[in-house]
């Protein structure tokens, strides 16, 4: 459900022109912003470009099509109609529906495309970001932060990527009706990237919005990712980094946030975990630690009705019920059905299985031994067996039970404690 654009013909001219301007070759936020402000609006800017009165800044390089030539090949109305038909909205700096926090940004997206409900960006927004190469524990915490922050009425902003980002969105999508989430895309809002997140994009559109400064249909070019990261930072009041390798892309978002005076917090991790090197460095440099959504809400000055410091342990992340026939949910994603999902009905039961108590620890001494051997970092089955000193069959049986209870998760043969 998009906000209906005002029916005035001038408004439609502006929208079509805004779509067309973003299709000019090599145009970026700086040059587009300059165009819009010099001309005083999209329609005027488009006219100026077409007539050749406004061109590419600096010396034109050979081999690059001048904007006037490129503009002659672009029909703004076809593009605008295609966008409208695809449920894509367009807005620009200065329009009343442009997100208020972004409008104050030093380098806002001059033109913003969106699908879903753009107005959720006017709520209190928290960015929950991190690496694609995350640990099961990091993934789980991202999911919990997403869910609990959305439950508390926050809008969870992230980058729609694999790993931490995706799970933060997913957690927010599973929260109650107050929850909202916004995905900032590097590609066009109608070009899901990565492809296997197509179903997630749809859910984010339903529970909030997918926004992008890339024109519809545009691919996720490499240079778009750092630019996208500044939009994540600029949309949020606070940035939480769940896991980040040293030198990881999340640290670009952190930099953009710090330049803008936006608070950055990080989740502490094991000192040996490569996926926590970046976040632990942030903590060392003085970023505030985040252990749960409560820490984030405290930092934002949210007063909560409940006096509990930390939320109760949560069940493992629910796997989204994707729409039938969804191309992103093929057999190639079989591995996704492992570990982090709840046990499907019909879990075989045996005496060994029953031996572990519902808490997953304490009752069966072997379960406690196995949990201790797994530890908080991804650990190979080999090492778990070596540490426990029990036959592999026993260790595997206990691990499977612990996974079914959500105490451990497995990925590609590596196990990690979740709680």
């Amino acid at each position, binding site marked *: 459900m998009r906000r209906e654009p005002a029916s005035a013909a001038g408004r439609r001219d502006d929208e079509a022109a805004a779509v067309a301007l973003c299709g000019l070759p090599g145009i970026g936020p700086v040059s587009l912003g300059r165009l819009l402000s010099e001309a005083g609006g999209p329609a005027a800017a488009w006219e100026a470009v077409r007539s050749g009165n406004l061109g590419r800044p600096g010396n034109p390089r050979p081999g690059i099509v001048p904007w006037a030539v490129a503009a002659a090949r672009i029909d703004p109305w076809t593009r605008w109609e295609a966008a409208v038909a695809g449920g894509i909205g367009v807005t620009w700096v200065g329009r009343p529906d442009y997100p208020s926090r972004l409008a104050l940004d030093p380098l806002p997206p001059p033109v913003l495309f969106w699908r879903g409900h753009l107005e959720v960006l006017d709520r209190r927004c928290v960015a929950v970001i991190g690496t694609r190469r995350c640990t099961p524990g990091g*993934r789980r915490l991202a999911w919990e932060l997403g869910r609990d922050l959305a439950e508390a009425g926050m809008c969870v902003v992230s980058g729609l990527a694999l790993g931490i980002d995706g799970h933060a969105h997913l957690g927010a999508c599973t929260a109650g009706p107050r929850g909202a989430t916004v995905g900032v895309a590097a590609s066009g809002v109608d070009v899901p990237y990565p492809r296997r997140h197509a179903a997630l994009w749809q859910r984010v559109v339903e529970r909030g919005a997918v926004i992008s400064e890339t024109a519809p249909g545009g691919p996720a070019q490499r240079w778009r990712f750092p630019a996208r990261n500044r939009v994540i930072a600029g949309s949020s009041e606070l940035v939480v980094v769940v896991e980040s390798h040293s030198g990881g892309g999340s640290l670009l978002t952190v930099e953009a946030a710090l330049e803008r005076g936006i608070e950055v917090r990080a989740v502490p991790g094991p000192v040996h975990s490569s996926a926590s090197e970046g976040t632990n460095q942030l903590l060392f440099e003085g970023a505030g630690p985040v252990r749960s959504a409560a820490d984030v809400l405290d930092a934002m000055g949210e007063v909560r009705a409940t006096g509990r410091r930390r939320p109760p342990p949560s069940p493992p992340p629910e796997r*989204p019920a994707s729409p039938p026939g969804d191309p992103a949910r093929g057999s190639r994603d079989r591995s996704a059905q492992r570990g982090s999902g709840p046990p499907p009905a019909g879990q075989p039961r045996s005496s060994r299985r029953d031996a572990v108590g519902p808490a997953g620890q304490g009752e069966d001494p072997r379960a406690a031994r196995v949990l201790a051997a797994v530890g908080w970092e991804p650990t190979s089955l080999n090492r778990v067996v070596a540490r426990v000193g029990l036959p592999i069959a026993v260790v595997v049986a206990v691990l499977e039970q612990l996974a079914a209870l959500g105490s451990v998760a497995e990925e*590609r043969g590596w196990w990690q404690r979740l709680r």
Partner: protein
Amino acid sequence: MLATVSSATLLGVEGCAIRVEVHVGNGLPGFSIVGLPDATCREARDRVRAAVVSSGFKWPQHRITVNLAPTSVRKAGSGMDLPIAVGVLGADGQLDPSLCDGIAFFGELGLDGSLRRLAGTLPLVGAAREPAVVVPVACAAEASLLGGTRVLAAVSLRNVVLAIAGQDQWSRVPGAAPATEQDPGEDLADVRGQPVGRLAVEVAAAGGHHLLLVGPPGAGKTMLARRIPGILPPLTRAEALDVTRVHSAAGLELPPGALVLRPPFRVPHHSASMVSLIGGGTTQIRPGELSCSSHGVLFLDELGEFSSSVLDALRQPLEDGAVVVCRARHSVRLPAQCLLVAAMNPCPCGGDGSPAGCRCSEAARARYASKVSGPLLDRFDLRVAVDPPDVSDLVAPDPAATETSATVAARVARARGRAAARGVRCNAAIPGRRLDELAAIDGASRRLLEHRLRQGRLSARGMHRVRRVARTLADLAGEEGAVAEEHVLAALALRSEPFAPSRGVA
């Protein structure tokens, strides 16, 4: 005048009896060899002429025609130098041809008339129908392995001609007695902190299950693989002769005493060509590394670096237990009953492959995994991740985790005995349709497997392989009857998916 001398030629790893007919007659002096000789065989003309002259005999100034019968068989190699030389001397009257009756001749001649060792002595001697064979002294031990044939060893052409005529002694046949026990190799007791890897090699040895070890450099993959021959049952006499025959035909160096007693362990480099790995060749069909590791281990280190065509060519022979090389006139069957053990890194970045410890992009990892095709990956009943042991875990090692190769080998031998009692070569060879009969599983195991199938964590094909491995685990534990759930669980854990893509959320 005509002389006929017996010999044999190699077809793959089998010998094929050949009659060398030499005619020395009137006509312009010349020397021709007919009857499908290959290039090396044709070069015999020059070697034989030089050897005859250097040995102090006269080269007949007549027309010499050599016919190698039967003419339908391609004759390869230099092993027919000696019979041709003897035939020429016989046909020319410098040697009484009737003295050559009942003797087969083998050997390559040097230009000085010396006899040199030749590849494939064992199968060649096996093909000879004569009660005695003349071989180079370097091959005498090998030639006497079969027994039943009188082995006459010689050092040179002159030695042969004089000894046949009773004017010289045959050389002493060395080391006819079986050699001393060969080096058993490294011991499993040295492998610490690798319980999963140790179990995997034990199961591989006990059940003949092909094994893929996945781990970062330095994790100990090669260390584990090298210890498998030491826990395999020692070769039986028949197996030892089979292996020796192949090694001999491939021209590999044989151990002292000539008989290969230990299961072979072959490590072809990843740049190996199709022919050197699988066998074949343009003129002479030679066994490849696959055949040379029969009854032993073929270890492919850096599996992902092998060319995909070579790896694809491995699949069918592994399934059939034999390589069939077809040529225009005949086809040759080479053995391929080996245990395939392969090793590769989890991904190209050199990390440990853990979710956070790998710097590869999704695409790079997928590309790396795709180097090993799904069908080949499927041939590995056992796929285990190996990681370097954590020093902190090695402070107080579990005594059970430091068993010696001898202890493990005894269990492996008992398990192999149980499989043999069921009438199969090894558990990996149990046909799918006989699984219920030979590898029955109990109710809990069945429910566990059905659950995994429903979850999509196991394919129907994979289930068969898991059941065979579970049978081997039960055999190792000495359990008869239906296989218990614990063994199925362990079998599932020994068949991991090391190349699964990173998880998306939807």
